[in-house]
């Protein structure tokens, strides 16, 4: 693997005597809350990106915010790196343990502390599952909008750390748009509340800075979530195209017409056929691409918009436009999309999910270029997009048992992300940088910007012990990576020493 922790390029901390660590941490935690036996650590060696694995020295399972604060203070005193982990469903290795460090697992913070149906808020602990919030809010006619595809399992604390999105964020926003305040603990053990129940809290918007900071600034211990009224009506249109470019054109036409769909998803031929075989969603197997466009709101408005969007899709060259007849068919159409990732098992033994964002207008170019790159690397790619917001999820198909295939997949993934940056996009739309995209950060940001990120981190965590080696690369790493990847004939970071 290219990107295993490298003490030269990431972070280096003196090893801590296991006996000292135990003596200091175990008394701070509830019985059974300090794990060091190999078989107890194994389940925590990776998150949702299992290609990356590392063993921590210990797993800490606190039950109260005071215990979290005490553990963090102790780790600071000992100089031990700490990685916080929620449900471990992240796709970028953000919760990958630091080798020899402490993994702080928040799974015992699993209570919904209260739902206020009048204020339309939910106060939850970070270990609460995303979907559990909407389930608890449903009797009040409310829901929690961010819906990452892992919502059955992923936790709110992880959602805050990653600024999770989902299918419906086109209309309802990302996690940062749907939280009011967060209680966080810094490495010094200080308990702070960022944001608040009233809007636009005094001072800097540190809650917004904290959201999506991938566990580098502090540990979330409680969150006040904003709930929304469940829409009165939800309808879904499926449109088929015999050309991917025409499907992309339809996306642009819908957005330009002033429609704000609740979701606007696209799948290309390989993806939709695999999904159809897997989920029997009723997709037209011979299409080159399909779009799923969901409209929700008041019944009267939805009826109007469905008419408009259907017309726009036909004008954009759709070969077929189908409106889900009932709730059962709507769910079936979605089941195919939501099953797209597991369905890849039918195309190849392994797949590698990429997460780039591009301006929508660049979609036809990026699709063509991606096809060329896939050919160069000798691997297949199936495409699933959150088309409405330009968030691509190319699924690179490979076989981990074939010598060199994983490396090829990683190289192709990196090339696709750099392609996204080159058209003005981003290397990650919702999965986070984590460990996985640490090198591509050097492509998206200048050394001065990387330095500014490190300075902001130091404002929260001067010792650099929280989730080191993730999200923000060192300049040394960028220099090394720049040495391998020359862009536009120019060597980035030319002034830096090279290893």
């Amino acid at each position, binding site marked *: 693997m290219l990107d295993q922790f490298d003490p030269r390029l990431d972070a280096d901390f003196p090893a801590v005597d296991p006996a000292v660590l135990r003596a200091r941490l175990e008394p701070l935690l509830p019985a059974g809350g300090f794990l060091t036996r190999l078989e107890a650590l194994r389940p925590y060696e990776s998150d949702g990106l299992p290609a990356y694995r590392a063993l921590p020295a210990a797993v800490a399972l606190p039950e109260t915010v005071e215990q979290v604060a005490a553990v963090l203070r102790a780790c600071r005193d000992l100089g031990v790196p700490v990685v916080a982990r929620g449900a471990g469903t992240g796709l970028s290795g953000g919760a990958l343990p630091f080798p020899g460090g402490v993994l702080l697992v928040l799974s015992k913070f699993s209570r919904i502390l209260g739902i*206020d*149906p009048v*204020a339309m808020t939910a106060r939850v602990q970070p270990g609460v599952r995303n979907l559990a919030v909407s389930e608890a809010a449903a009797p009040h*006619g409310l829901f929690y909008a961010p819906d990452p595809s892992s919502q059955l399992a992923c936790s709110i604390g992880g959602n805050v750390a*990653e600024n999770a999105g989902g299918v419906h964020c*086109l209309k309802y*926003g990302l996690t*940062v748009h749907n939280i009011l305040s967060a209680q966080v603990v810094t490495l010094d053990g200080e308990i*702070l509340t960022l944001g*608040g*129940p*009233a*809007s*636009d*809290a*005094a*001072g*800097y*918007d*540190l809650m*917004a*800075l904290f959201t*999506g900071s991938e566990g*580098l600034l502090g540990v979330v211990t409680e969150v006040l979530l904003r709930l929304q009224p*469940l829409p009165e009506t939800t309808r879904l249109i499926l449109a088929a195209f015999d050309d991917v470019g025409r499907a992309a054109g339809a996306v*642009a036409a819908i*957005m*330009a017409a*002033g429609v*704000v769909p609740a979701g606007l998803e696209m799948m290309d031929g390989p993806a939709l056929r695999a999904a159809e075989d897997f989920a029997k969603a009723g997709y037209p197997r011979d299409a080159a691409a399909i779009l799923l466009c969901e409209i929700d*709101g*008041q019944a*009267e*408005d939805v009826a*109007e918009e469905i008419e408009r969007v259907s017309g726009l899709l036909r004008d954009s060259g759709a070969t077929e436009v189908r409106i889900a007849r009932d709730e059962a068919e709507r769910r079936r159409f979605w089941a195919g999309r939501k099953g797209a990732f597991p369905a890849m098992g039918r195309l190849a033994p392994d797949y590698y999910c990429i997460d780039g*964002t591009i*301006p*929508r207008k660049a979609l036809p170019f990026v699709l063509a270029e991606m096809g060329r790159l896939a050919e160069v690397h000798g691997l297949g790619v199936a495409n699933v997009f959150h088309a409405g*917001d*330009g968030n691509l999820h190319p699924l690179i198909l490979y076989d981990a048992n074939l010598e060199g295939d994983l490396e090829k997949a990683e190289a192709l993934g990196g090339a696709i992300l750099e392609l996204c940056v080159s058209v*003005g*996009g*981003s290397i*990650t*739309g*919702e*999965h*986070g*940088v984590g460990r996985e*995209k640490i090198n591509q*950060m050097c492509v998206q*940001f200048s050394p*001065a910007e990387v330095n*500014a*990120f490190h*300075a*902001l981190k*130091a*404002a929260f965590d001067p010792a650099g012990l929280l989730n080191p080696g993730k*999200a923000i690369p060192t300049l040394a790493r960028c220099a090394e990576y720049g040495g391998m990847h020359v862009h536009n004939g120019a060597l980035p970071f030319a002034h830096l020493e090279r290893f």
Partner: protein
Amino acid sequence: MPTSNGSDADLTAALAEAVRGAAADRRPLEIRGGGTHAGMGQPVSATPLEMTGHRGVVDYDPAELVLTARAGTPLSEIEALLAENGQMLAFEPPRLGPGGTLGGAVATGLPGPRRPFTGALRDFVLGARILDGRGEILRFGGTVFKNVAGFDAFRLMAGAHGTLGVLLDISLRVVPRPAVEAARVLETPSAEALAMLADLMRRPLPLSGAFHDGRRLHLRLSGGRAGVDAAVARIGGEAADPAAWDAIRDLTHPVLAGPGGLWRIALPRTGPSGDFASLPWDQGGGVRWLVAEAPPPEAWAQAAALGGHIERIRGAAGPAFQPLSPGLLALHQRVKAALDPDGLLNPGRMYAEI
């Protein structure tokens, strides 16, 4: 679609030079836009850094719903361009006078009446290019909605009053202008109106404004024809001119206007409001407006106890912002030092320590 007019200019190089020069002799700077929001925050006595010459829309593609403009671009110019294309700024920035700029709107972070319905100003900032306190050009975020690479320092710029960086250009997510807008006025006393509104907001209605002038509830609806008509039928009241909402947005409505001070008291929308219960309110009850030279001394602690905070919009009495807890203030100082290590950008504008 970059647009331009005769006065557009990219002064990035000159501004960077000015900040580097100031940094070299440790000379603090006062960042100046149109001056319309000067009542927010304390005066800064420092060398002025004039931003209004750095103006113009850099990029705007209506189909992308993204606009990038230089900080000194007049808001009125941006809003006119958006209107021509059937779009608008969702955060509905108050115009507190002629000549307000995009940079000023973002730096002050002050949202308009749509706040509880569409979100905070920072929710619509996608990226920003700034000068840090050393005159280094930094670009955070970008021009796409979903982007989680790097810390979201661009969102941090919204409401930082220029104390963390000089905004150079800003990319915004813009939204389609609603097909139909309607306004209603109801003779409903304040407490009753709040209860009614709390109930309405729990339903998927196309509300886009809820203001109470002390006597009457003003509601605005924005959306499709059918949905707005259905909501109007449900809400009742008398029809009013939606254009009257400009005065609510710009804080020139008769109950907010005047030469004296104006204070924005943000409270949890549906919670108790203590001594602030009799004040006119906006944003569904989330903001109480106090017209006074200064809030009563006990108001600050009471606002905090209610989960809210006070900030000055007009006037001169201090403090201009709700005091921060010692822990948060210390963190603010460290964040400030991360981007402006010598404390040269608008020092003291928000708090003496930053």
